[in-house]
């Protein structure tokens, strides 16, 4: 296990290194550079040279990259956004909380609903219950998140005023202290998530139900409940663990569409605005954070395999 973790750690470092180089390189491919875009029509050769110097963009690319990497590794300093006049660390601190809160809640409810639904469908395969849930899943899966969000918002907030509109959710405190405001964004994500996850769960359960060990357990006199929840469910959860592990980056990646629809100043909105404004320092920071969590999520999924399935050995 220790050997495995050490090996994975080094793999992760290499992965992150490649991601950082790719992201850093791509963001510097912009014609005439970031400073030119920042200046807009205030551009003239003098102002461009001054700004390039101020931003350190007049140094060789390798030096810029090394400086950035040095700050990141030694101080976990993701840099300073000259367009927002704030450090990227501060911006992430200010936006990450509300995004993680919403996505985390959505992930929790998605799992909490999709697992029993998948089990229910598998145990009642080809019944009205199965067909009904399947129909719901297909419809929910087919409906784009942005459309669902807009419909929920217009029905519950605009038409019937069942949930008041907040002009802005711009902090974790604002999100946490206004649970009513979280209902629709979370519901939007949950509906889409449950549709997909429950299908996976159903398939996984059906795969396991037909395995030999199930027949053996039944033959040995195990109760249906024990077979289902003691054996089948545990094994059926293994593919779900992968899915959940790979969903973790969404916690820090935010849910851009939902944030825009419900006016939440989260990390998704921060990233897209930065990308549109060529604020490469922020984009680099959020990309790296997402990459780190993706690597960790993948690692957690692998470790969870071993916990759920003793046959799996992490070596």
């Amino acid at each position: 296990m220790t050997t495995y973790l050490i090996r994975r750690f080094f793999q992760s470092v290499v992965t992150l290194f490649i991601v950082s180089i790719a992201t850093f390189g791509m963001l510097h491919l912009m014609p005439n550079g970031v400073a030119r875009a920042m200046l807009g029509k205030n551009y003239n050769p003098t102002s461009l040279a001054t700004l390039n110097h101020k931003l350190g963009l007049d140094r060789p690319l390798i030096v810029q990259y090394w400086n950035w990497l040095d700050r990141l590794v030694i101080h976990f300093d993701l840099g300073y956004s000259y367009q927002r006049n704030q450090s990227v660390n501060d911006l992430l601190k200010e936006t990450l909380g509300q995004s993680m809160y919403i996505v985390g809640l959505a992930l929790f409810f998605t799992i909490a609903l999709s697992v029993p639904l998948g089990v229910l469908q598998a145990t009642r395969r080809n019944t009205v219950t199965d067909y009904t849930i399947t129909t719901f899943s297909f419809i929910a899966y087919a409906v784009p998140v942005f459309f669902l969000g807009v419909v929920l918002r217009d029905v519950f907030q605009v038409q019937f005023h069942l949930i008041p509109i907040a002009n802005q959710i711009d902090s974790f405190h604002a999100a946490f202290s206004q649970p009513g405001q979280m209902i629709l964004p979370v519901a939007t994500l949950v509906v889409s998530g449950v549709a997909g996850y429950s299908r996976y769960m159903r398939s996984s359960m059906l795969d396991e139900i037909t395995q030999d060990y199930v027949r053996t357990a039944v033959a040995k006199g195990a109760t249906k409940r024990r077979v289902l929840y003691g054996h089948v469910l545990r094994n059926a959860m293994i593919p779900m663990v992968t899915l959940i592990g790979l969903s973790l980056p969404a916690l820090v990646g935010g849910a851009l569409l939902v944030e825009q629809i419900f006016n939440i100043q989260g990390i998704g909105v921060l990233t897209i605005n930065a990308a549109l404004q060529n604020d490469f320092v922020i984009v680099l920071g959020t990309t790296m954070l997402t990459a780190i969590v993706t690597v960790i999520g993948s690692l957690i999924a692998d470790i969870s395999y071993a916990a759920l399935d003793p046959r799996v050995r992490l070596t």
Partner: protein
Amino acid sequence: MAVRNTRKVLAMAGVIAVLASAAACGSSKKSTSNNGATNPVTTATSSSAPIKPGGVAHIAEWAPGTSPDAIWPFMTSDQLSTSNAGQFQYFFYRPLYFVGLNDKLAVNYDMGPASQPTWSSDGLTITVPLKSTWGWSNGEKLTGQDVQFWLNMLKAEEKQSGYYSPPNAAAQVNYLPDNIKSTQVTDSSISITFDQQYNQNYIVGNALQTVTPMPLAWDVTDGKGTKGKCSTDTLTSPTLQADCDAVFKYLNTAGKDVKTFASNPLWKIVDGPWVLKDFNATSGAFSIVPNTKFTGEHKPYLDEVDFEAFQSPDAEWTVLKAGSTAPNALQIGVYPNADTPQYNGDNLQAGNPLASAGYNVEKGALLDSIGYYQVNFGSKNHGNLFKQAYFTKALQDEMDQQGAIKGPYKGWGYPTTGVVPGYPDGNTLSPAAKAAAAKYDPAEAKSIMTAHGWDLSTTPATCKSPGTGDNQCGAGINAGDKAEFTLEYPSAHPALDTVLAAYKQAAAGAGISVNVVTKTQNTLGGELTACSASTPAGCQWDAILYGGWVFSLQPTTDSLLTTGAGSNIFGFSDPKFDAAVAKTIKSSDPQAWYDYEAYASSISLPLIWMHNNIWPWAVAKNFHDSGQDAFQGFEPEFWYYTQ
């Protein structure tokens, strides 16, 4: 063709708008037009109900995703924008002369600390009297020294400053502070002697309107209040650079620290009608409250104005739809294009989708602006084509501005007629300029191309008569060369897609193949450099729709079109044009403008005129909105609830 309050820049001669210049707010004048249904440039709306003082207003005037990022009214090149100035800093710190109010093209002496100036008999020295009643909220009186402080800072920090323009050799003019020979400061005035005679309206409305007096309390070098010497120097002091460097370093850092905008005691010292109460560094939302020590003419009616931040136009639209009496309701917002009612000057409320939600439609101000897409005379592939006056005339003839306004923009726009804005009223327009106003004439475009030796049997047309004669293709164009180029424009603007698809189709009728390509606004901005050995990328682009230009009071194009001007990235150079521009800056004679307009309309300019937008604002029925001014500023001290 416009985005609201996107990053726009002030220049010595003007203010530039992104995306074909237009952003406005509801005006407060009565309709004066009988034919308003077809002519939005003459109609406005009104609120004449009695004033109900007090209250808190929630406003959405900053475009989604944008917010102020500089509070010190001495911005660097990357900070300078009309949004930061007219929609934020001017609430607290008033420029020496305030131009505009509603859509008036005039200096509004009521609004700033300086009264009407006087000039010496030789026309070289202006004396700016400062109002004896005007002062700072910390008790300081506003004096000539406060003006000198700003000028000194400009002199010392010209490389950093967004307000500085290098001398314009082509137009033979210098700009602040290079054109100042000397200054004389008293408690109640400042006299400035210039290096040569200038158009006096230009000095007041273009040059001095950028100068914002600064309190002596800001002449400090650190947070402990260590006194600086920048304000007490003169422009020729040998220690000016060092003295102002120290102050600049401190104030510039503090002035962009968004987290302390509302808490830093420096920024609480104001001379405008408002003071910043809150600023949310994450979202950019902010609140202003009246400056209780304001000594100017127009004191605020409202107790507080909250400028809300939205992450998308849709999020803002949702709040508007919820109604003007809902919790967190907006008093002012903007109709998104998809939900904007068709413009009807006779009845602006016709088709108002927010009527039952408690909002009126109000017509935004007409800006002192020109809309255009720009062509690159330095383009390595098609520069020679753009240099032909007949070709740019043909390109202009294919641009259906009225069609764009009436079609995808639903009537909410006004045309660009030429190099001097024809709208709003107030600019000096010669009969020649009026006669040469841009018009849509595809037949003429076709005729022009045929008459200059192009074979229109295919699209793109090919040059069959090379040469420089009147009936030939022109210098640098070879036989078989094609009439084609690429026009890049900002993505995610459906109305623009429609306009440019129609333009492409119309141009094809004259044998001109326009390859339209979308890119993000900032990507386009990054491409916009002049063609030179050091910036070869500037030789790659053909034509780009990036934004128009909003002028200062005098609509001269010295910063945009003269040879070597900072914003002349088009490779355009014409000594006669430079001379004509120079006259508009140096002479107060209207004939200078007439000559300039006449010459500009006779040559190939690198600008193809497009329409300007008018913003449709949603204003709560119980709220009075004074409107945005013609230079993109807001004046919330004129807003109030009605009885």
